[in-house]
């Protein structure tokens, strides 16, 4: 599984398409029968993933997540908790991933390969 991270409008989805995936193969829902999961950060809005979610997540070929932890600490407590969930989930996912890519201005910068 490859983890693709990067800021807003940094070119993550364009990069995944360049890997050969069509738009129809990407979805933001874990249950969708798609090899690419989009917006992992949105999935974490409601709370942490349970073990069944993890199993499904690890079956994906590509997981795309916004980098949300490089700005100021959010004013709202729920946003702070969410931001930490995203960071911790990405770190755990990166340990399982075979490749981790951070996209900067559309350029893939490999953090793990």
């Amino acid at each position, binding site marked *: 599984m490859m983890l693709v991270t990067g*800021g*807003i409008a*940094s*070119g993550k989805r364009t990069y995944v398409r360049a890997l050969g995936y069509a738009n129809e193969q990407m979805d933001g829902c874990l249950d969708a029968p798609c090899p690419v999961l989009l917006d992992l950060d949105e999935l974490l809005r409601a709370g942490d993933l349970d073990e069944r979610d993890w199993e499904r997540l690890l079956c994906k070929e590509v997981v795309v997540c916004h980098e949300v932890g490089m700005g100021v600490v959010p004013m709202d407590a729920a946003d702070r908790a969410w931001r930490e969930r995203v960071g911790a989930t990405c770190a755990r996912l990166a340990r399982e991933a075979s490749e981790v890519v951070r996209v900067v201005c559309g350029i893939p910068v490999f953090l793990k390969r």
Partner: protein
Amino acid sequence: MIALVTGGASSGKSAFAEKLACSLADTRTYLATMRDDCDEARSRIVRHQRLRQGLGFGTVECPDSLRPACAKGWHGGVALLEDLGNLCSNALFPPCGRASADDVLARLDAELSMLQTAFEHVVVVTVEAGCAADGTHASTADWLRVVGALGCALAERSDVVVEVACGIPCVIKGRLSWT
């Protein structure tokens, strides 16, 4: 050549971009994008003027459009555009009213391409701003999308892309012989 320099706030992008621009040509034009409409902006402008003092830059004021830099045809030499974030802010949020994000994106993308018809080398400074949890406000989201999309478009056309962190340049596309 076209070079794009990105990085966080106060990460050393300007100092690096100026060094890069100076290495490319002796005729140097600085495309300034900051509006001097408040004390904070004015002190920032003075800090940047001091940074490039003695480096031989002529300055063209381009707060919301790059047309002033291309108006006189071929300048040659190197143009240093600093920076894309300011240019997008000024274009999206003019003193009166609000411009459409799609219009600004299309216009600035075309103007960035036009720079290449006026200068031999173009160095553009942008900012890594989209890596935070604060993109939910509509105006902020528009700005992030325009800056991000222009950065991607420009990176694709660039010979060299450099990300600066803590003053340290990391070349993420192309090659610089002296870094």
